[in-house]
């Protein structure tokens, strides 16, 4: 059942003189779980609100299941939203909240009853139907908000940081449940969050946004392993960024001069003498007391400055000779026998580095 569900074409949104979404184009497949990820103020929520119909794009087009919808009002669009604040109607019971959408669409009474009950069962809250929102816990309100949206069988479910208000434990649990629900129902989800871990664990694809631009779209693995911009590399997970200049290039590798040495990096579409940044994940690097004689390894030399215990792993911070810090990840039970102040070497495979230019 693949096919195009949402197509955003050159979306621009301006508030006054401020441009919050800049020329954004994105295709979302049917049944996909797509996450818009970015820091606050990056335009992800505005993008979501334009799909929902709460904001009109300044220019650009939105297509939903083959129809242009960007000039339709929110209530005329076949999408539903789970709000950050849940936005449950305080004067209605859980049941009436869930039934609201069906009632305004004049669905026959018996069908409403059946569908609302099904929706409440789906979120395991059949027993709470008569409660008002202020008699429900945060997690229960969250589920009612999801049921209220899903009961309408929307083509797309939009979720605006729906887990933001929950505590850590409940949040993990809801992440699993939401993902499960989405697989089970096969509805297209567009999920907005600033939490990269949430994005990585739940999504089929992630769109990373920054300052109104869509920086990169890809599967969680692609985003994590092959970030295409400096921002993506830095925003998703922890990364060491080394700045340098391309010296020579062949069909397989680049030689980049940085930290005073020639560093080998995987080939990329760059010219000689161009400034680039090499990104290396902490867990991809190895620490050693002795220099390696393996010509294939990249090797930088520095001093151990700090070790931070993180349970199973330990973050070891090395200050390179240039003064830049480099973070490596060690297994706590296999720590290198070194103390603060000791000289050591940071090593990695050239193709574990990622070259980014922007």
């Amino acid at each position: 059942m693949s096919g195009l569900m949402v197509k955003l074409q050159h979306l621009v949104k301006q508030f006054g003189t401020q441009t919050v979404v800049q020329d954004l184009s994105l295709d979302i497949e049917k049944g996909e779980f797509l996450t818009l990820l970015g820091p606050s103020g990056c335009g992800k929520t505005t993008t979501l609100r334009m799909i929902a119909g709460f904001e009109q794009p300044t220019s650009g087009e939105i297509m939903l299941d083959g129809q242009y919808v960007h000039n339709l009002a929110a209530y005329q669009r076949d999408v539903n939203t789970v709000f950050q604040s849940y936005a449950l109607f305080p004067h209605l019971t859980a049941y009436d909240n869930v039934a609201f959408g069906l009632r305004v669409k004049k669905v026959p009474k018996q069908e409403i009853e059946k569908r609302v009950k099904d929706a409440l069962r789906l979120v395991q809250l059949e027993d709470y139907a008569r409660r008002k929102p202020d008699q429900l816990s945060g997690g229960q309100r969250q589920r009612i908000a999801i049921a209220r949206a899903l009961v309408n069988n929307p083509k797309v479910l939009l979720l605006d940081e729906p887990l933001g208000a929950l505590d850590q434990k409940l949040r993990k649990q809801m992440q699993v449940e939401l993902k499960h629900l989405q697989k089970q129902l096969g509805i297209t989800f567009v999920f907005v969050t600033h939490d990269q871990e949430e994005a990585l664990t739940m999504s089929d694809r992630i769109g990373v946004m920054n300052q109104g631009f869509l920086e990169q779209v890809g599967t969680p693995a692609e985003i994590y392993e092959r970030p295409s911009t400096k921002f993506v590399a830095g925003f998703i997970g922890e990364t060491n960024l080394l700045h340098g200049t391309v010296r020579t290039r062949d069909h397989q590798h680049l030689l980049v001069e940085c930290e005073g040495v020639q560093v080998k990096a995987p080939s990329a579409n760059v010219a000689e003498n161009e400034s680039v940044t090499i990104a290396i994940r902490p867990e991809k690097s190895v620490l050693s007391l002795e220099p390696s004689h393996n010509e294939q390894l990249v090797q930088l030399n520095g001093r151990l400055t700090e070790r931070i215990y993180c349970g199973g792993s330990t973050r070891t911070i090395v200050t390179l000779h240039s003064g830049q810090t480099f973070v490596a990840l060690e297994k706590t039970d296999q720590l290198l026998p070194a103390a603060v102040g000791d000289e050591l070497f940071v090593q990695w495979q050239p193709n574990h580095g990622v070259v980014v230019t922007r």
Partner: protein
Amino acid sequence: MRLSLANKLSFLYASLIYLFLYMPIAILILYSFNQSKLNAVWTGFTFDWYLKLMQNTEVLEAMKTSLVVALISTIAATMIGTLAAVGMYRYQFRGKTALDAMLYLPIVIPEIVMGISLLALFSQFEIPLGYLTLIAAHITFSIPFVVVVVRARMAGFDRSIEEAAMDLGATPWGTFIKVTVPIIAPGILASALLAFTLSIDDVIISFFVAGPSSSTLPLKIFSMVKFGVSPEINALSTLMLVVTLFLVIIAERIRMRKN
């Protein structure tokens, strides 16, 4: 619990102020049950003045006028004011500052200015003073208060609740009736009670826009007081106080329930 000297003084002071606030009213009520027409000396308990009041056709007529004017102006002012508060909460538009000023000024300028300006308007357009002018004037001075009260209620209103309704397929009008109004209902009710009380109590503006045959209750009291003190006025005042007290208590309960 032993009270310190400061606490005792505080208690004494507060009691004196409350005495200052309530004693005149209490004596007024007390003397409405006094037999003596001269009413300074207590001569015995009676309900006569209330009975006399019920036979006074002019007073009954004024009561009727007051109630009709208050009811109609309350309904109209509450409707116009509530819509205005919702619109001003929801939309940005040109002239919003001007409208804000037009709703703020009537509250702060002395009532007498509004009274004479309405009188000037009605006489300029040769609209005879009577029910119509009274109602129009009362709607005018009530609207700003309704807007203030309803807007205060809307200030804590989560905008995404309206969006949620639209998202679920409700039209803007449907959203207003099914979601916005029920949520701000306590504010609307409180503002209606305020408008009603303002209308029932108003002296100054009514003084200028009431016709000779459309005297409201406070105006009737005013003209009676000019002829001097009488136990009948005491009785009438007591009745009005009771009605006001009743309305205040209801309004306060609504306000408390909100918190």
